[in-house]
């Protein structure tokens, strides 16, 4: 069995200023297997991958790869690619202003005899690749015209097309809906049968059990164990990741039910934004958690943006606490008591080069106004309070926020809004790319906020998560609100509602 091994990483050590990110981490990949890399946020998954693909230099340890003499240390992504290691990252790393075909072939464009780019051939091969993967795109259109999910599929298609021996998927599914995930899995199984070793990083346990053969668990940058999927029940896996037993997720809801009060916080009538969301009515009460559910692109994020005023509503009225709110820009909504955590963390949420502290106090500062600055001690106290409260893993409050792991970045943005003490908090995919322990914490936090009389609009791709936290669900389809569910909330009823009448027959 060991002759099947294609890659061995042993005793890898890597430190960042103030943090030991990897401490004696190991990984073994075999041909024709799908290998899950699991661990909490900041456990070192992404760092290990970046060491392997040559993005980060590392201090200690060995990497051996089949077909490579001696140490297979990659110094650049190009070198890794030449050795047959292809990577797809959680955040799409393609060029949005180039066409789909260009993105697929960038750096390896087919050439004509005169050494110019053979556009015809490029577009036709691109079309073929996309057709084989069943991705409905026009390959000559710019990538930015497509949703994040499609962009992610293009990134995967590019990696797959590059004759790789090892394919690394770093949380590729966090922005895909179920249908697209199924497509991806089919693709992964095909590749596995062709002998490709796939390293799959995900936070979704179901997905691990659906496609993977073997699991490596990292904890605090250390190797915690390697298991075959068959011998590892879920509870044990979670326990291995956390290093402790998990409180029962199902018990969360019981603590936080019946917090809904009569006072209406936001009442929207006929709100719409041209091209993204058709007119809708929406009411949320004090202490209520309302979920917006639907497929990706159904308008659930757009509805949230419209309520917040990120996209200015062109029709309709919105009253908040009985007063009409005409938000010209987000600051008006913030002043009225709203907070909004966007779904695209990198593009819409983080101020990357600024410190954790600055990222936390910025929204509060914006609310107070430019000429009433928080004093340095107030800033520090605020940052320390939330780093402690949300257990944000960071070397210090002055660390630039883009040095944090994805889940901790998300916590920083959450802290930013909690600091403004909003009456209505809009959370668009707050748990995406976050480990299961933190997910539970965030869900608990949402219910705690509701118990304190705050209102929360919650969007998530995971129906289970919505069922646990929301007391009412708005169902979205094709850019309009098609209904509400407020009793008998089960996976089945929600799925049927999302799918709609037309598709019900098929299921």
């Amino acid at each position, binding site marked *: 069995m060991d002759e099947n091994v294609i890659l061995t990483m042993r005793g890898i050590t890597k430190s960042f200023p103030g943090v030991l990110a990897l401490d004696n981490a190991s990984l073994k990949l075999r041909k024709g297997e799908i290998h899950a890399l699991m661990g909490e946020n900041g456990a070192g998954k992404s760092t290990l991958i970046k060491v392997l693909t040559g993005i980060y*230099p590392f201090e200690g340890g060995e990497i051996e790869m089949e077909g490579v003499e001696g140490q297979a240390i990659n110094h650049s992504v190009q070198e890794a690619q030449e050795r047959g290691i292809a990577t797809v990252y959680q955040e799409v790393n393609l060029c949005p202003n180039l066409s789909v075909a260009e993105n697929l072939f960038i750096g390896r464009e087919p050439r004509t005899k005169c050494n110019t780019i053979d556009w015809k051939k490029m577009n036709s091969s691109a079309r073929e690749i996309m057709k084989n993967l069943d991705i409905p795109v026009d390959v000559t259109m710019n990538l930015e015209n497509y949703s994040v999910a499609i962009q992610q599929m293009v990134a995967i298609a590019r990696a797959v097309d590059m004759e790789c021996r090892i394919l690394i998927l770093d949380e590729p599914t966090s922005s895909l809906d179920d249908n697209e995930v199924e497509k991806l899995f089919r693709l992964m199984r095909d590749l596995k049968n062709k002998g490709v070793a796939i390293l799959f990083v995900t936070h979704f346990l179901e997905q691990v059990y659906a496609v993977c053969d073997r699991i490596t668990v990292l904890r605090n940058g250390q190797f915690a164990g390697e298991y075959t999927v068959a011998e590892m029940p879920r509870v044990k896996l979670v326990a291995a990741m956390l290093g402790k037993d998990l409180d029962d997720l199902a018990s969360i809801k019981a603590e936080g039910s019946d917090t809904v009060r009569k006072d209406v916080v936001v009442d929207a009538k006929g709100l719409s934004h041209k091209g993204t969301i058709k007119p809708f009515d929406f009411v949320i009460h004090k202490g209520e958690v309302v979920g917006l559910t639907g497929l990706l692109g159904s308008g659930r994020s757009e509805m949230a943006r419209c309520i917040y005023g*990120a996209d200015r509503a062109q029709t309709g009225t919105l009253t908040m606490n009985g007063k009409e709110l005409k938000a010209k*820009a*987000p*600051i008006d909504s*913030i*002043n009225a008591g709203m907070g*909004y955590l*966007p779904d695209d963390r990198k*593009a*819409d*949420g*983080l*101020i*990357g*080069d*600024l410190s954790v502290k*600055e990222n936390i106090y*910025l*929204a509060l*500062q*914006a*609310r107070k106004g*430019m*000429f009433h*600055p*928080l004093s340095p001690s107030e800033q520090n106290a605020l940052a320390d309070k939330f780093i402690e409260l949300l257990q944000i893993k960071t070397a210090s409050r002055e660390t630039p926020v883009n040095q944090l792991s994805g889940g901790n970045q998300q916590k920083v943005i959450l802290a*930013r809004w909690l600091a403004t003490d909003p009456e209505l908090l809009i959370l668009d995919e707050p748990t995406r790319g976050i480990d299961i322990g933190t997910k539970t914490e965030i869900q608990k936090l949402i219910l705690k906020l509701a118990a304190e009389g705050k209102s929360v609009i919650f969007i998530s791709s995971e129906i289970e998560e919505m069922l646990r936290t929301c007391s009412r669900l708005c169902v979205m389809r094709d850019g309009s609100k098609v209904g509400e569910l407020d009793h008998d909330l089960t996976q089945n009823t929600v799925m049927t509602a999302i799918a709609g009448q037309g598709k019900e027959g098929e299921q």
Partner: protein
Amino acid sequence: MKNIQKITRMKLFFPLFCLLLVLLINVVKDPGFFQISVKNGVLYGRLIDVLNRGSEVAILAVGQTLVVAVSAGTDISVGSVMSLSACFTTMLLAGYGVNTTTTIVMPMALGLLAGILMGGLCGAFNGALVSKLRIQPMVATLILFTAARAIGLLLCNNQITYIRYEPYKYLGNFIPGCPIPTPIFVTIVVIVIIMLVLKKSALGTFIQSVGINSRAARLLGINSDFLCFLCYVICGLCAGVAGMIASSRIYCADSNNIGLNYEMDAILAVALGGNSLAGGRFNMAGSIIGAYTIQAITTTLLAMGVSTDQAPVVKAIIVILIVVVQSPVFKSWVETKKNRRRAEIKEAV
């Protein structure tokens, strides 16, 4: 050793280091560099010269730093705007079409203020193009870069207007009874104002946020477009002030020569100050030190007898060296070299 590392990691280390190096070379070449003497009741000396002549670039660098930080672009119109402001003021003070005058037709303070506001107006024009119409900063400011001088010439009826009115010379030279050149005071005032604003308000953090991620900044309640606009207006006002000094130095508005190539020096000052021209994080003190470094280099070269025509070549070489040493690529290269050597030593042990 640790203390040394602490010092070298400080943000201002490199800009200061460069300035000190240039000054040191001067001292070695000419021990009299730091000598300051009093002639005719005013201060003379190389150091005073650097501080005096560097005023315009230092003031421009203040505005330019904000523009670079907020929009990841540069305002290349500042030199021309200086010229336009100067022409506008002289036209107001001398009257349209007057070639040379010894009396002024308007209170001088009002004329100067109008000139500065003209700079602000130009800044507002640039700012509107960049923040509202989303035109790339370089292209947007190219319009005034080419047009402002011509407009200035029109205002002065295609001639150089001389104002031989004694108080008009005060701003760019000396106020009677005061031994220190006036531009130094003006620069101090501008710097103190901007530092106070940055310290006493959240403007600095907001500008950096917009420069790093304007979409995210807008969503968390910062008026990104307005801040961008504001930075261009401030930059324009700075150009106006610099234009007043430059005009007062020669008590005329020489439309073709006032502020010529100053935009390049201002941008260079920002870069020398250790600021990334890709926007975001900025360091105002660094830019100001950078401005005086440039002036020190120029003064040194002229003092060493390099001809005015050849000076730019030497200046370019020095600037390239400074910029390379400060670049992150170079720094990380040094870092890896150091680490490798350390590893080798470890292995040997």
